[in-house]
């Protein structure tokens, strides 16, 4: 088996992973930057539309990291680890400005970096580049990575597991080189997981199909703790046509115009959920409202609700499209008129889709996990944002945690003489397991298993949850995991079914975590909604759920949130 050694190994190459690589290389380390996609052209970063939050105080002098801190903690319903929030809000301004050294240029107004407003922020603090902020960020980070000779980029390589020494330290990883199906071992003195989220476990997902939660699963198997896994943020996406299901382009007027939402009865239903904010309510309230309307049988033909800006005179919409997209009717990649989606004439069918995993691998303020040698950054890391995420915090959090993890990994790597050897017996066994689907003679296609998992998660652990549904979900996940798969082709060259089978192992573990944590949390808070426990319960649930592995089993425990500066206001 091929073996590649470096000081630092980073799995996941985009906003968080790419930033880690730059920092670790700048500190003098050799770096391996591994992605199962293509560096700079895959994952969720390049799809981010608009906001990246940092308290620069340029749009409003009253903004500061202190205010940003408060917004994050309040927005997260007081479940944030406040040490991590301090780390985030303090470093965000500097990291956002650092990107301009990589060649990116934030939108400016009157010579100053422009900061837009997103609900949940006390003052406008979202920097942006048109409606392609993520795209520009991904390209800029890649350009900077390529300037560092000590960073070796490895594309098309699916890391299936972390490698542990016999002492339980992470000493590298094992992966599959997807082009020809060979196995490769990476050995390192410090490893960072920057693998993004797990949205693809849901039937309706916003983002890329690469978000299969690989990092969560690998960390879990290596003995790391995860936190806040019940908090999955859903947001608006197209429901129709099928080619566009889950894409955000059609709903971008949400950011510039005043869309009205209607159910199948023609009722402007937000009146019943947020009478004051209406369609400007925060994402969790909107998602709950939409999911409820659909569930109660008031949804559109393709299980959505109506999204309408046709009430505006066409010239107003055209002027806004001119301002936002330079007159182009291609909105965030979607050529609207070519799809017969003319928002001047008709309402669009929209739905909610899984957007962001607010929880993740548990880290300290140096992005270290509880497993020696292992760090986490970006969406893969958890504990910072508590029960909910304000729009715009994801991108800047990637930059901050990416930088911190890169710096810490470098320190760790340079303080050691060499990486300990991986457990050879385990490695041999796991290699055989990775290739096992080829030996299977009967079973179900991984494709249909994956679709079943996605449907199960959508029905049982989506926006609206209840105990019976979550238990049913867990039973279906268990059945899915124990039944065999079979592949239609024996080729090792880019065998999509085999890749699905490997990803499915991870998706099932993540699905189990989400369901178990959601079942345990008997209340509604942030983006976690229990129909059987519709109120927030600070008396019993002002705590985080931590997930770990004990023997073969998943164990849940609770801990009080780490508070440094803010206690929950007296509410409820």
């Amino acid at each position, binding site marked *: 088996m091929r073996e590649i050694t470096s000081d630092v190994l980073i799995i996941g190459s985009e906003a968080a992973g790419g930033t880690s690589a730059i920092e670790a290389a700048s500190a003098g380390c050799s770096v391996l930057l591994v992605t199962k996609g293509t560096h700079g052209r895959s994952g969720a970063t390049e799809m981010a539309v608009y906001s990246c939050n940092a308290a620069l105080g340029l749009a409003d002098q009253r903004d500061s990291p202190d205010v940003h801190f408060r917004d994050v903690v309040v927005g997260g319903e007081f479940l944030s680890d406040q040490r991590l929030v301090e780390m985030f809000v303090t470093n965000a301004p500097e990291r956002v400005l650092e990107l301009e050294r990589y060649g990116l240029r934030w939108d400016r107004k009157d010579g100053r970096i422009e900061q837009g407003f997103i609900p949940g922020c006390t003052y406008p603090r979202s920097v942006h580049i048109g409606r392609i902020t993520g795209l520009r960020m991904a390209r800029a980070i890649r350009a900077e990575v390529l300037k560092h000779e000590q960073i070796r980029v490895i594309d098309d390589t699916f890391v299936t597991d972390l490698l542990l020494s016999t002492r339980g330290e992470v000493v590298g990883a094992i992966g599959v080189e997807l082009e020809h199906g060979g196995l490769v071992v990476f050995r390192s003195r410090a490893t960072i997981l920057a693998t993004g989220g797990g949205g693809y476990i849901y039937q309706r997902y916003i983002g890329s199909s690469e978000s299969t939660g690989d990092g969560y699963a690998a960390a879990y198997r290596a003995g790391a703790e995860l936190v806040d896994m019940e908090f999955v943020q859903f947001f608006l996406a197209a429901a129709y046509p099928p080619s566009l299901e889950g894409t955000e382009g059609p709903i971008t007027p949400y950011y510039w115009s005043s869309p009205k939402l209607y159910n199948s009865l023609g009722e402007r239903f937000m009146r019943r959920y947020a009478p004051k904010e209406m369609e400007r309510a925060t994402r969790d309230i909107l998602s709950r409202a939409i999911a409820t309307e659909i569930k109660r049988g008031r949804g559109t033909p393709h299980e959505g609700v109506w999204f309408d800006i046709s009430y505006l005179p066409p010239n107003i919409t055209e002027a806004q499209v001119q301002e936002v997209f330079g007159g182009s009717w291609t909105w965030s990649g979607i050529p609207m008129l070519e799809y017969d989606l003319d928002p001047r004439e008709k309402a669009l069918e929209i739905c909610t889709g899984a957007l962001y995993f607010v929880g993740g691998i548990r880290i300290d303020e140096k992005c270290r996990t509880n497993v020696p040698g292992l760090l986490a950054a970006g969406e893969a890391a958890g504990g910072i944002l508590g029960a909910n995420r304000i729009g715009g915090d994801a991108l800047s959090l990637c930059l901050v945690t990416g930088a911190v993890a890169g710096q810490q990994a470098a320190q760790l790597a340079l303080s050691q003489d060499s990486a300990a050897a991986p457990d050879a017996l385990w490695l041999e066994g796991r290699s055989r397991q990775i290739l096992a689907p080829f030996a299977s003679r009967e079973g179900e296609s991984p494709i249909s298993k994956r679709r079943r998992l996605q449907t199960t998660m959508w029905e049982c652990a989506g926006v609206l949850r209840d105990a019976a549904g979550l238990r049913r979900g867990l039973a279906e996940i268990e059945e899915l995991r124990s039944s065999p798969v079979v592949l239609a082709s024996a080729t090792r060259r*880019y065998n999509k079914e085999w890749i699905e089978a490997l990803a499915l192992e991870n998706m099932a573990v993540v699905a189990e975590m989400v369901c178990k944590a959601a079942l345990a949390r008997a209340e509604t808070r942030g983006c976690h909604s229990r129909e059987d426990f519709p109120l927030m319960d600070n008396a019993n649930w002002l705590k985080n759920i931590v997930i770990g592995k004990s023997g073969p089993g998943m164990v849940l425990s609770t801990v009080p949130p780490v508070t440094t500066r803010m206690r929950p206001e007296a509410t409820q």
Partner: protein
Amino acid sequence: MMASNQEVTVRIRRFDPEAMLEPVFASYRLPYEPGLNVLRILSLIYEEQDHTLAFKHSCRIGFCSACRVHVNGKPLLACRRIVQPGEELVIEPARGGQIVRDLVIEVEP
């Protein structure tokens, strides 16, 4: 043979350098649906008709270029090529790289 108006016919160039001496064209038919694009066609074929098909995709919205292919001789992104009822498509891998398998080519470093 002409497809009916509510169908789309697709021929895809299949090739596995390790298992085949030369490429072959495989034919598929699928019902037209509103908003059909080539990426959706490839996904439907892979999921419902032929699990052995190899192709790449990531963002679905024309940003990443993972889904670049040749359709009827033209290079384009599968996710951006909208398809009309009754169309006959010939789908081949993009040029400019060694074929890994079917529509997947080697990524230039």
